[in-house]
């Protein structure tokens, strides 16, 4: 048993729900006890969806256990099919149903439904949400793209590729000069029926040459900023002359999945979700897939280069008079000087943590003092990256371990999940959210991608915001005793973020961050320490104690404090 205060991921069947809810025409029949319908409100409340998730639960109770729960599953399945008439059905068990072993897959086969049925084997006591989503998507792709769905069952299977270049939320806006692409980003945007002679143009287009075409894989329901990431990347692809065939699972039907093989290559936005499916599509259809996740300016440029290579088109020229993102200039402007070397701790899913580590160091000029992930599937990548940054990798889904690591590292900023917001609040450290799990405020109404060039703008604003501003920081360092503007006060531009712990090291009971035994602070030294601005005070305390312990000093004096400062500033 694992003592769990907060859990970073839900059970794997929630991952399966994220796939079913993201798609159209898929229904999920879940063998689960009464009460597991709580998961519906993740979608209706946190993501604020306006429809019930396409999930029917058997909601068995204790009195059903004495009877035939298998029969209950089968009758629920048939009733759900008849009511919702989906194009494909997912069947599976939640953790409790896994224990009673009714075999939903076999029962569904026996029910002989006239549509494809995909049985899910999701081991609830070993695996978690993202794994469940990846496995479900993979099984669906295998079942559909493998050719199980006939053309006749899916009238929409033959429709033309979804247009790229214009996002549903943003107007088109050419950032690139795209040499050698005769079609504007608007190509394919209008339906053939809408324009006179459109059908003819469409036909001749396919006869002559068509733009390269990709699928976008990975966005789901309840994904962190998936909605806007897709819009941003579609726009970007359109501008460099690449069409989008299918976006999946978000918004796709089983019929769309059947068309996955028609694209030239795949764009994998979220490897945690779509990595397995992309590898299968490569084996099956020879489709290459992208490996760079376009979060941050540098990564987005590399992503563009990778896409152009896969699409066999010339990489676009960057038009200097049209800067793609504001981040580079904002970061170079002198106002940002004080950000240099700020100590930042990064934790989240592997994709977002790795991207944030790169952006924080290369684009913000921060110093990384911790890097970790709860995604065990991609632990190796995070370990490698941590080694390059010279920090200890933290691979854990234990909230208490993460809390201890942050307390130990004493960062000035935490980039993490909803859970790290709890920790940061407790420790009195500024925090920005970079990864799921997140709460309702991180499904915002406004356009707020993390990916692409606009995503970099969003990152800039949201990561700098929790920090005390430059002048404020200087004044706090100079005048310690201002009655309304001191380090106990809430940063003046923030309603939230009040420090609840008087002093980080004291506010938390973590055995290994106590002062080393035998080293005590003199009264003067303690007073001098308090003159150091709060966001670096914890680090100064730790360094001084370390310095004193290494030299066997019994008491820390003002001299020791400055000796340690000189020692560590080298």
């Amino acid at each position: 048993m694992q003592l769990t205060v907060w859990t970073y991921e839900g059970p794997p069947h929630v991952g399966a729900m994220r796939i079913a809810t993201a798609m159209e025409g898929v229904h999920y029949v879940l063998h689960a006890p009464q009460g597991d319908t709580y998961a519906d409100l993740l979608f209706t409340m946190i993501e604020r969806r306006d429809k019930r998730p396409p999930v029917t639960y058997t909601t068995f109770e204790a009195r059903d256990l004495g009877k035939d729960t298998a029969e209950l599953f089968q009758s629920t399945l048939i009733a759900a099919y008849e009511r919702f008439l989906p194009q494909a059905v997912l069947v599976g068990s939640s953790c409790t149903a896994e224990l009673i072993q009714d075999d939903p897959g076999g029962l569904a086969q026996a029910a002989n439904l006239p549509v494809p049925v995909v049985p899910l084997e999701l081991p609830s006591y070993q695996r978690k949400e993202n794994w469940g989503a990846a496995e479900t998507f993979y099984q669906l792709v295998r079942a559909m793209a493998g050719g199980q769905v006939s053309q006749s069952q899916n009238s929409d299977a033959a429709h033309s590729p979804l247009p790229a270049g214009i996002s549903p939320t943003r107007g088109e806006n050419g950032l690139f000069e795209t040499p050698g692409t005769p079609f504007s980003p608007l190509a394919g945007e209008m339906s053939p029926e809408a324009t006179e002679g459109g059908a003819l143009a469409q036909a001749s287009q396919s006869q002559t040459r068509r733009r390269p075409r990709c699928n976008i894989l990975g966005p789901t329901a309840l994904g962190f900023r998936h909605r806007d990431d897709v819009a941003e990347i579609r726009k970007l692809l359109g501008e460099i002359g690449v069409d989008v065939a299918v976006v999946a699972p978000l918004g796709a039907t089983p019929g769309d999945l059947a068309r996955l093989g028609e694209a030239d290559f795949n764009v994998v936005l979220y490897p945690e979700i779509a990595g397995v499916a992309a590898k299968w599509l490569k084996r099956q259809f020879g489709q290459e897939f992208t490996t760079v996740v376009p979060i941050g300016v540098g990564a987005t440029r590399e992503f563009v280069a990778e896409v152009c290579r896969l699409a066999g088109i010339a990489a676009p020229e960057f038009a200097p008079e049209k800067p793609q993102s504001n981040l580079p200039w904002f970061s170079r402007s002198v106002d940002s000087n004080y950000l240099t070397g700020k100590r930042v701790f990064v934790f989240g899913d592997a994709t977002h943590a790795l991207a944030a580590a790169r952006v924080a160091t290369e684009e913000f000029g921060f110093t990384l003092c911790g890097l970790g992930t709860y995604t065990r599937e991609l632990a190796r990548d995070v370990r490698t990256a941590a080694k390059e940054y010279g920090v200890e990798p933290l691979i854990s889904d234990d909230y208490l371990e993460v809390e201890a690591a942050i307390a130990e590292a004493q960062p000035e900023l935490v980039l993490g999940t909803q859970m790290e917001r709890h920790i940061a609040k407790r420790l009195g450290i500024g925090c920005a959210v970079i990864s799921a799990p997140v709460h309702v405020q991180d499904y915002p109404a406004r356009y707020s991608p993390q990916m692409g060039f606009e995503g970099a703008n969003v990152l800039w604003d949201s990561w700098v915001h929790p920090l005390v501003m430059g002048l404020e920081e200087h004044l706090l360092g100079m005048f310690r005793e201002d009655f309304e503007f001191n380090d106990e006060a809430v940063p003046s531009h923030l309603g939230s973020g009040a420090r609840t712990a008087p002093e980080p090291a004291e506010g938390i009971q973590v055995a290994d961050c106590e002062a080393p035994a035998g080293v005590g602070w003199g009264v003067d030294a303690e007073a001098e320490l308090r003159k150091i601005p709060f966001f670096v005070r914890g680090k100064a305390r730790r360094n001084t104690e370390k310095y004193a312990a290494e030299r066997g000093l019994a008491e820390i004096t003002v001299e020791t404090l400055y000796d340690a400062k000189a020692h560590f500033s080298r």
Partner: protein
Amino acid sequence: MSPSLDPLGAALQSPPVPAPGCSQAPVLRERGQREVFCGLTGIVWLHRKIQDAFFLVVGSRTCAHLMQSAAGVMIFAEPRFATAVMEERDLAGLADANEELDAAVTKLLERRPDIKMLFLVGSCPSEVIKLDLSRASERLSRQYAPDVRILSYSGSGIETTFTQGEDNCLAALVPTLPQAEGDEPNLLVIGALADVVEDQFARLFDALGMENVRFLPPRRSRDLPPVGPSTRFLLAQPFLGETARALEERGAQRIAAPFPLGAEGTTLWLKAAADAFGVDPMRIRSATAAPEARAKRALEPYRAELDGKRLFFFPDSQLEIPLARMLSRELGMELTEVGTPYLHRQHLSEELPLLPAETALSEGQDVDRQLDRARAIRPDIAVCGLGLANPLEAEGMTTKWSIELLFTPIQGYEQAADLAALFARPLDRRTRLRI
């Protein structure tokens, strides 16, 4: 209506009710998908009520995920609940589940030395594999006595619906209550109430001259009220079947009363207790008249807004029938279907006669069919859980999400108008928004 059911008679000035109300009304009993919470959710308010208690769910990752999803924004505070998540090795018999549980409890009590009472809460997985938590709690109690008292109950979805978790928790407390000495009558008020409501009721009982009144659950685990054959108990919540049974086993007797929702309900509830303790009717009148009149005055503006509005209850907490009674009798709302997860006939015996006879009652749920009925009826307000609320709003229906009724002080005179406001607000909002 018999005089005993309306002891204040015309003084209440409530609309006349057809003779038997809903006492003998047919109840639609449905089986199918139930869109309800499991009993674990009760922890979300119980852990704040009993301030030195900790709730350790023994379950799966799903249980932990439910707890943090249901706890919503409160998750920024250090919670007094956690989950011991069972893993593959616990199920495969590779690890002795009891040893694993002991280790989790030890780790927990080291982190939270301030905890005086620990509830081991059973879940669906722990029930299905038949992990004996009552034996575990006895074993651990011996180990940690006298510093920490360790109890167990089930909050599993297969056995409990939403508020029944509180019922099981309180029922687990009952055997630990001290024995009441002597034969002087004492009153126990049962059910977790907001602190402010509890204080108001304590003052009212004081004004009634009833001195020996205690509340269960207490705010501190060391402050357990005594119980014995001299004890009479009054339920403040309608979902406490098991707790009532446990109290009766210890010789206590229940006082039948409607529940203290609204001006009328609160008076009837207080009067039932006062009558049982032989309080002079004049004294009852003088203690309740002023606050009752104040509550009615406060309700008036809401009556103007809610009168004639048609109401539909999806099942959730068992509060539906008392709420429907209050909303129909005191605010003039029209009841269509009133659904409840479980209908306890005996405990609702004073409520059912007060419901309009034409009310359609349903027990249990088949959510898709119930949604069909709601869509056909198109009520002015549908009371439902968060899984249904936004989808129904998107269909153009006004909803009131039901969980709020457990998280808001709604009982007693001073909260009668707040309760009405909870139902008026979604309608008010709908008329304000011009987009």
